[in-house]
C-alpha cells in the first residue's frame, strides 16, 4: 500500500473512499435481492438476482480491501454485518426502498449510468487494487446498464400506465441524483492523489447518456433539486436501518454462524 505509507491522512481518505463504493454496491445488491420470488416474471427474477450477485461480488472485493486498509482485523463480513447505519457510507439513492418494478428500474438505471462513468475512470486509478476491481466491475456494469436502460425505454415507451408510473418514479428518485456528483474532501483528496476522478467531470457524460435514454423512453427529465441527504457521509434516510436490521439479523443473533 504505497499510498498509505506516504501519508496517513491519505490512507484514511482512501479507506473512506473504498467504503463508499463497497457500501453502495452492497446496499443496492441487498435491495435487488429482495425481489427474488417477487419479480413480475421468472426471467426478471433471475435477471435482478444476477445484478444483485454482481453487486454483492463487487462489495466483497471492496470491503475486503477496506478491511485491509483499516488494519484492525475486520474482514468483509465484519464490515457488512456488524456496522450500524451511521457507519455505512453508501449513496442515499441505493438505500431507497423497493416499490414497483419500474421504480426499481429507475433506481438501478440512475446508479448503473453513474457507475459506468465512475468505474471507467477508476480503472485508470493510481491505486492498482482499486483499478483492478473497477476494471472487473465495469464489465458487469455494462450489462447492468444494458438491462436497466432497456427496461426504462420499454416502460417509458410502453402503455399510458407504464409511462405514468415510471415518470412518477423518476420524479421521486431524481432528488437523490445530486449526491452522485457532489465531491467532498475525501473525493478531492483522492482526485489529488490520482486515485479517483474529478466527480463533477463525470456529470456531463452521465447527463448526456441519461438525456438520450429519457428521449428514447419519452420521459421528462425532472428539474435539478437541492438534496439534504448525505449517505456517503453517514447521514441516511430511515430506510437504511430497516434494511440493515434484516440483512444483519442472522449475524447479530448468532455471531460467527456458519452455513
Amino acid at each position, binding site marked *: 500500500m504505497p499510498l498509505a505509507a506516504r501519508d496517513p491522512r491519505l490512507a484514511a481518505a482512501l479507506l473512506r473512499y473504498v467504503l463508499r463504493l463497497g457500501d453502495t454496491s452492497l446496499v443496492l445488491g441487498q435491495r435487488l435481492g429482495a425481489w427474488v420470488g417477487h419479480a413480475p*416474471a421468472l*426471467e426478471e427474477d433471475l*435477471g435482478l438476482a444476477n445484478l444483485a450477485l454482481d453487486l454483492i461480488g463487487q462489495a466483497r472485493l471492496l470491503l475486503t480491501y477496506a478491511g485491509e486498509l483499516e488494519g484492525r482485523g475486520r474482514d468483509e463480513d465484519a464490515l457488512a454485518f456488524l456496522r450500524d447505519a451511521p457507519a455505512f457510507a453508501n449513496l442515499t439513492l441505493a438505500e431507497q426502498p423497493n416499490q414497483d418494478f419500474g421504480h426499481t428500474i429507475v433506481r438501478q438505471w440512475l446508479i448503473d449510468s453513474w457507475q459506468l462513468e465512475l468505474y471507467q475512470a477508476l480503472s485508470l486509478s493510481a491505486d492498482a487494487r482499486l483499478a483492478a476491481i473497477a476494471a472487473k466491475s465495469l464489465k458487469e456494469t455494462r450489462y447492468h446498464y444494458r438491462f436497466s436502460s432497456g427496461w426504462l425505454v*420499454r416502460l417509458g415507451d410502453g402503455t399510458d400506465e407504464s409511462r405514468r408510473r415510471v415518470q412518477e418514479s423518476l420524479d421521486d428518485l431524481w432528488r437523490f441524483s445530486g449526491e452522485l456528483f457532489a465531491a467532498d474532501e475525501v473525493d478531492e483528496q483522492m482526485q489529488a492523489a490520482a486515485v479517483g476522478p474529478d466527480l463533477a467531470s463525470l456529470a456531463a457524460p452521465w447527463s448526456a447518456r441519461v438525456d438520450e435514454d429519457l428521449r428514447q423512453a419519452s420521459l421528462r427529465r425532472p428539474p435539478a433539486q437541492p438534496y439534504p441527504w448525505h449517505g456517503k457521509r453517514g447521514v441516511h434516510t430511515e430506510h437504511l436501518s430497516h434494511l440493515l436490521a434484516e440483512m444483519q439479523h442472522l449475524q447479530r443473533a448468532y455471531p460467527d454462524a456458519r452455513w
Partner: protein
Amino acid sequence: MSNDWPLFEVFIRSRAGLEHKHVGSLHAADARMAIEHARDVYTRRQEGVSIWVVPSAQIIASDPGEAEALFEPARDKVYRHPTFYDIPDEVKNL
C-alpha cells in the same frame, strides 16, 4: 405478465467452432429482452459464448400427424446406413 409475452426459442453456442444448439424457450416482450433473458436463464454457468433467439412463431415445424408419411418410408431402407463396408484398419477416425 410473462404469459402475455411471445415465446422465443433459445440456441446457445457453447464454444467457438461448435454449432448453436437448441436449449429451450422463454417469454420476452421483444428480441432484446429475449437475449437478456436467455443470458440470465441459460448462460449462468458459463454455458455459452453466443446466443441466438428466434420467435417461436417463426419456426415452421413438421406435423406430428404426418410422422408416418414423413418418416416411416425410411425404416425399411437400412441399406442407407453405411454399415455394410469393411473398414480398413488404417482408418482411425470414422
